[in-house]
C-alpha cells in the first residue's frame, strides 16, 4: 500500500510537471527527512478513505523557476503571486492523486492548500502511511511528505 501510494504521488507530479511546465525528465528517491534552508511549504489535507495530510516542500529556487516557466516572466523573490501559484500546483498534483486513487477504489477529498511557516508542522504523530519522497527535476528538487491514515 505505501509503495503504491508513493508511486501515485511521483506519477502525479511527473504528469503535472510534464503538462504544465514541459519538464518530462524527473527522478525520485525516498528520503528520511528533507533538509533545505529556504523552502516553501504547502500542506494539503486529505479526508475520506485516506485521512491526514500531505506536505509539499519547494525550495525557493525551484518555486521561482516553476513560476517563471508558467508565466514567461522573471521572478526574483517569493511573493503572494508565487506562493499562490505553487499552492495551486500542489492542489493540482493532489487532485491527480485523487483521480488515481478513485480508480483503485479509494474515495478521498482534499482541503484548500495551507501555506505553512517553515517547519511549523514538525510534530511527530503516528501514521499508517508515512513516507517522504524527493523529486529531482532540471529546475530543482522538491519533497513530498505523506502522512496519511487508512480509514475503514
Amino acid at each position, binding site marked *: 500500500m505505501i509503495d503504491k501510494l508513493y508511486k501515485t504521488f511521483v506519477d502525479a507530479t511527473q504528469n503535472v510537471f510534464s503538462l504544465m511546465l514541459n519538464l518530462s525528465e524527473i527522478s525520485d528517491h525516498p528520503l528520511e527527512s528533507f533538509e533545505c534552508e529556504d523552502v516553501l511549504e504547502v500542506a494539503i489535507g486529505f479526508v475520506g478513505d485516506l485521512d491526514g495530510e500531505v506536505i509539499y516542500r519547494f525550495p525557493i529556487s525551484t518555486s521561482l523557476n516553476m513560476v517563471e516557466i508558467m*508565466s514567461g516572466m522573471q521572478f526574483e523573490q517569493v511573493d503572494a503571486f508565487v506562493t499562490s501559484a505553487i499552492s495551486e500546483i500542489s492542489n*493540482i498534483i493532489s487532485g491527480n492523486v485523487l483521480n488515481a486513487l478513485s480508480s483503485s477504489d479509494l474515495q478521498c477529498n482534499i482541503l484548500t492548500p495551507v501555506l505553512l511557516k517553515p517547519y511549523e508542522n514538525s510534530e511527530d504523530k503516528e501514521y499508517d502511511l508515512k513516507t517522504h519522497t524527493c523529486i529531482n527535476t532540471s529546475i530543482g528538487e522538491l519533497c513530498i511528505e505523506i502522512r496519511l491514515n487508512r480509514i475503514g
Partner: protein
Amino acid sequence: MLKTKVGVKTKNNYKKGVNNMLWKDKYELGVPLIDTQHKELFRRVESFMQVLRAEDNWDEKIPQLNETLEFMKRYVVEHFRAEEEYQQSINYPGYEAHKEVHNGMVDYVKEVSKQYENSNYDEQLMQQFGGRLLAWLINHVAAEDQRIADYALKKGVNGND
C-alpha cells in the same frame, strides 16, 4: 479579433507586439472554435499579468489593472459559456462535471473581486489571485479541456464544419 496591448513599463523582457507569450501550441485541441477562444483567453490573462507584475507603483496601476481585470473577467465567463455549449452540442459525457469546474472558478473570481473592492484594491489579494489563475488556467487547458477534444475527435465531431 480584439488585440490588447498594454503599454506598461515592465522589467520583464516583452518584445513589442508579441503578446501571447503564455500560449503554447501544445495546448491546441484541434477544435477551432475552442482553440481560438483559448488563445484569446491567454492573451487577456497575459495583459492582466503584465500590468499586475509591472514594477510601477501599485496605486498608479490600479485604474489600468481594474480595467484589464474587468475585461478578462467578462471574457472568462463568455468563454466558459461557449465551451459548455460546444460540449452540449457534441453530447460530451463529462459536461456536468466540467461545468462544475468552470462554476467553481467563476465563483472564485467573483469572490476575489468582491474582497478586492472591499479592501480598497489591496495588492496582496490581486497578486494571490494572479498566481492561482495562471496555474489553474494552464492546467485546465492543458489537461481538462484536452478531454473534450479527445472525445470530439474520437466521435469525429471536431467542430470544423
